């Protein structure tokens, strides 16, 4: 498969404290790539740099051939961001949120309407499309949050812990959506705390700590990092690599 994302030596510091420290990776087109790490490891900062929200202090990344440093506008045309927070207008309906962000992304009204219908179908919210989001459950809001990221037909989708606080049904629905998207050629960069999610969903996983990648392989390949353990899980590997010290950030 063709390489769609390549990041080289990305650095970002806040008030002198490095949050991302020499981050490099490549992601193939249509791949679901998992980014695992404890709190404060630099996952969200990495995603925000790749999504052109934050400018890196050093390094660069190319997405679909466009540099996030020198051509952020071109990058924005092909990405979709589903942030960790539920970033939408709760006083509007799910459909109106999709229409609004579709128009913001440059779709015509007709295109935005069509995409809103398609995306609401994708996240199984067609029946509640015209209700105010404020009335939705946490899981439904998460699904609208995901649908908004899809409305502009992104080729690369950033999902920053999209299943936090979600019930098992909504979580299963979100997994199905992500698999279907990847099957259709969309590249997905997925950060999560839930290790079983990364294990089940991602073709490759990078474990990140202190702003740098400390391991990168397929889930099965990562199991091999604990050769002495009997049937190690990804969680065992994760704890082995990042330690058991609490990360209160």
């Amino acid at each position, binding site marked *: 498969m063709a390489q769609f994302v390549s990041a080289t030596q990305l650095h970002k510091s*806040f008030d002198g404290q490095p949050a991302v420290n020499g981050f490099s990776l490549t992601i193939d087109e249509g791949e679901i790539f998992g980014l695992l790490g404890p709190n404060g490891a630099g996952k969200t900062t990495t995603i*925000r740099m790749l*999504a*052109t*929200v*934050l*400018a890196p202090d050093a390094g660069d990344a190319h997405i679909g051939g466009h540099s996030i440093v020198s051509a952020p*506008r071109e990058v*924005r*045309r092909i*990405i*979709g*961001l589903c*942030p*960790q*927070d*539920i*970033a*939408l*207008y709760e*006083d*509007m309906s799910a459909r109106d949120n999709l229409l*609004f*962000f579709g*128009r*913001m*992304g*440059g779709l015509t009204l007709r295109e935005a309407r069509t995409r809103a219908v398609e995306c609401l179908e994708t996240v199984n919210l067609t029946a509640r499309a015209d209700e105010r989001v404020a009335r939705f459950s946490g899981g439904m809001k998460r699904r609208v949050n995901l649908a*908004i990221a899809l409305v*502009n037909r992104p080729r690369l989708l950033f999902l920053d812990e999209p299943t936090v606080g979600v019930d098992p049904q909504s979580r299963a629905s979100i997994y199905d959506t992500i698999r279907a998207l990847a099957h259709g050629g969309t590249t997905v960069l997925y950060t999560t705390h839930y290790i079983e999610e990364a294990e089940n969903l991602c073709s490759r996983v990078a474990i990140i700590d202190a702003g740098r990648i400390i391991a990168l392989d397929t889930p099965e390949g990562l199991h091999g990092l604990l050769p002495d353990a009997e049937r190690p899980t990804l969680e065992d590997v994760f704890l082995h690599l990042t330690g058991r010290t609490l990360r209160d950030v």
Partner: protein
Amino acid sequence: MKASLIARREIRSHLSDVADLAFGLALPVLLTLLILAVFGTPDFFPTAHLVDADGGDAAWAFRGRLADRAQLEILDADEAHRLLERSAIHHVLWIPEGFGAALASGEGAGLRILRRGSGSLEGQVVTAIAHAVLSELAVEADAYRRVRIFADNLGIEPGTVDIDARTDAFLEREAAAPLVGVTTRTVGAVPDMALRTVAGILSMFLLFTVTLGAVGIVEERRSGIVERMKTVGVRPWDLFGGKMAAGIFKGMLQAGIMLALLALLDSPPPAVRLLGALGFSILALLTFGILGLLLGGLARTREQALWAAILFTMISSVSGGTFFEISASPTTAAIARVSPVYYAIQGLQAILEGGGWSAVATPLGLLLGILGILGPTAFWVFRRAWERGLE
């Protein structure tokens, strides 16, 4: 294009929120009606709170003349003390027992004035009126007394000539053509308290744009909406322009209601002045909207934005002359000169009172100047916040 979509979304949200709408539209209506009810009468007519412990003819004469120049409220002694004690009134004119006898004998009649602090502006006006009335009565009593003494010295028997009637006639002639007179000539536009207060309150409503703008942008930033907008290709000027346009629309809705209600006045300002005030409101809203986005660009949290905006609004409202004439205090007058609110109020007052181009030009020019400096500064701050990731 994107700016207009952002503005439309915000306006739609404002109009669909019943509580927001009720607060935004009903409050100007209530306040304007209140102002018109309080200041609807053209002249200031003070109320004199009075205790009459004498009750004689002279005291009645004093009360009668005072009633020609002020609204009288007669109180008993206990009630007067009680009302003063709880600051329900700020002055009491007290006619002491023996007032009439002292006045007639020329011994010097005393009027007591009880007051809280300076007695308020109304109390000071009433005191001045009471002094004038008392002087008139003293001069007249002195005239009666001297004429009687003079007649007695001439050996005129009491009863042969009605001395008091002749003195009355003389005093009436004197009152009709006094030796010392004061004439009053009205110059320029008549200050209208209702219009002046509406201009102040209208500016205060326009000033809410600062708080709404600052808090609104910080909330959208904190919720991740602005970040999301950035990733779909929205530019800083799209958001800046959209927020400005929405703020102007919401402010104009309130301004339109307040100005439309001025038609309830006995002699409402001509339509051209109301339209002029509406136009001037756009300029004020532009300035205040930009200030709001400046504060929103500087603040990191909702609380920071909220308190900075409230502080600015409070200081500007008070020092800018929203509630009282700032010329009353040299310090506030000096502070006001740096506040755009001051020029907004001055401009609106000048337009509504028909002060002419010369009265409007100065506040208009200064407000444009402030806008010229604030606009680029606010956008620079806003853009920096945008570029550094809107943290």
